[in-house]
């Protein structure tokens, strides 16, 4: 990942219903609407009934569109930006190999 991408990156935090189809709804939305999705992290919460998804998206003029389209998905319970997370959050999770 290039440094410019990191500097323009935004992290979206989604709370979703946890079931087998929800990941394809979220990733499918990015593919269908030609939004860029750089990285994705998904962990079960609320005893497994829900998941939290963190999405790394390019700083794009479409960010508001992305949030609104995501919010329309039935299984997406909330969408918010996470400016508090460091820009290299995902890179660190990915380990040291470049």
């Amino acid at each position: 990942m290039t440094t410019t991408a990191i500097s323009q990156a935004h992290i979206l935090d989604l709370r979703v219903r946890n079931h087998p189809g929800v990941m394809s709804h979220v990733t499918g939305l990015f593919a269908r609407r030609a939004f860029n999705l750089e990285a994705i992290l998904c962990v079960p919460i609320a005893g497994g009934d829900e998941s939290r998804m963190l999405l790394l998206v390019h700083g794009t003029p479409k960010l508001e569109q992305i949030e609104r389209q995501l919010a329309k998905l039935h299984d997406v319970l909330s969408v918010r930006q996470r400016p508090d997370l460091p820009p290299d959050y995902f890179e660190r999770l990915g380990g040291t190999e470049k």
Partner: protein
Amino acid sequence: MAKKTYTGATLLTTLLERQGIRDLPGIPGGAILPFYDALHTSPIRHILARHEQGAGFIAHGMARVTGRAAACVATSGPGATNLLTAIADARLDSIPLVAITGQVPQSLIGTDAFQEVDTYGLSVPITKHNYLVRDVRDLLTVIPEAFTIAESGRPGPVLIDIPKDVQNAAIEIDDDELPAPGGCRPVPPAPDADIDALARMIASAQRPLIYLGGGIITSGASELAHELARRIAAPAVSTLNALGAIPAGSPHLMGMLGMHGTRATHTLLDECDLLLAIGARFDDRATGKADEFCPHAAIAHIDIDRAEFGKIKRPSLSIEADAADVLGRLLPRLQQNTSRAWLDRATALRDAHPLRHPPREAAPLHPVNLCRFLAETLPSDTIMTTDVGQHQMWVAQAYPFRAPRTLLTSGGLGTMGFGLPAAIGAAFAAPDRRIACVTGDGSLLMNIQELAVLADFNLPVAIIIFNNANLGLVRQQQELFYGRRYEASIFETTPDFAALARAFGIRGHSIAADSADPLAEIAGALALPGPCVINIPITSDEKVFPMVPPGAANRQSIEQATPAAA
């Protein structure tokens, strides 16, 4: 209370009955047979389509006439894939549809079993929501929820994929465990402050223009929109799917905007200082080149779907709410505008740029004349469906729609093959009305098999073919933009459609090109009861004008074929 034993299949019919489903188009097959067996003793009337896409569009016809969710059924594999086009069409035109598909038993899912496709995966991008039901008990929540999602907010299609073992599974439930039916849930009212702001914007505008979208019809706000136009003395332009919201003939309606709109609508969009977009989504066929759409106007955008705000054009004011709610509360805040200058300007423009067409006496079968003649001949409450192509645009331009839900057309997806099955669905939903389908010789063949359903039920549907022996709209583009290289747009042969109708057991009429009085013949054919097909020859090089070249700004519209263009 005593427990009752259901199977997934009988539970499904019970829940559909409770949803008010009376007519259910579909086609059976192995993976959905338990459900069909349950239908055998259900009061639901199954309508046996002849292709699942036909079943899907029959459901469209019902939903588009009533505004309520309609359902359709198919088996797994090819049954499900055949439904996809109708589902995608419902997505783009915001039509409430619940599609039910059989799936192979769960033990076989993932094994490439006979007639297994990933229906869930295929339908993700074209549904508002979709389900793969893994447990029979889930039907109790999924079915009402599917109807609620389909009808609430911005309507759309929902797909429910049900494996065969789920249909066969037994479940014991109390009758009071049966869920309440799902349905349209109201959205929160718009904040008063937004409506005040809108009223102020309107009061300070000199040249407001109302841009009517299909959402007005969905929300039942047609009369309110007309009242708004009167109150502020504003002209209105309509998208294809909003035709009928403000009745043709109203002094406020300036016609359809966009690719086949008139010069008057383009000029008004260029001149307006406030665009009131209501239930409209700034579709490229309406806006032309979006950067040059209404360049001098502030935009107030009212829509039930907030993702539409700023998707194409950035509004100065956006109100996320139901159009009827907003307009109903806006009107009391508005003074009657007594200045007629802007409306007079609009009227003058409209009158200066009528549709160009030869007089009826000279060319009775010119498509514009035909549309006007049909309007005079058919009952005024006729429901019109169209297919896709030139004939669709001529109908949109020239047929005077006077009430909402009298035009059913595939606007967003533009699906050839829509017209006949949608007309059948309309006939089921509105049994006392006349239904007419204006189609092309290309489109009709895409779902011609549904003539069998017309014959089965003897429905009052008149199919009127504008037969140019061409894929007319393709040919038109090739003539105007591809140097008249007519690749694959001219049919080598065309069937005898009247004979084809008779082969299905339906009245067929062929109007001769040299008939002494073709309009009288057409009127005669329309006067007889029951279904019929009327084949009308039109000239093959007739074009839909005006036309904005794809990608151009609306003001660059071509008014007629010039030798240079030709």
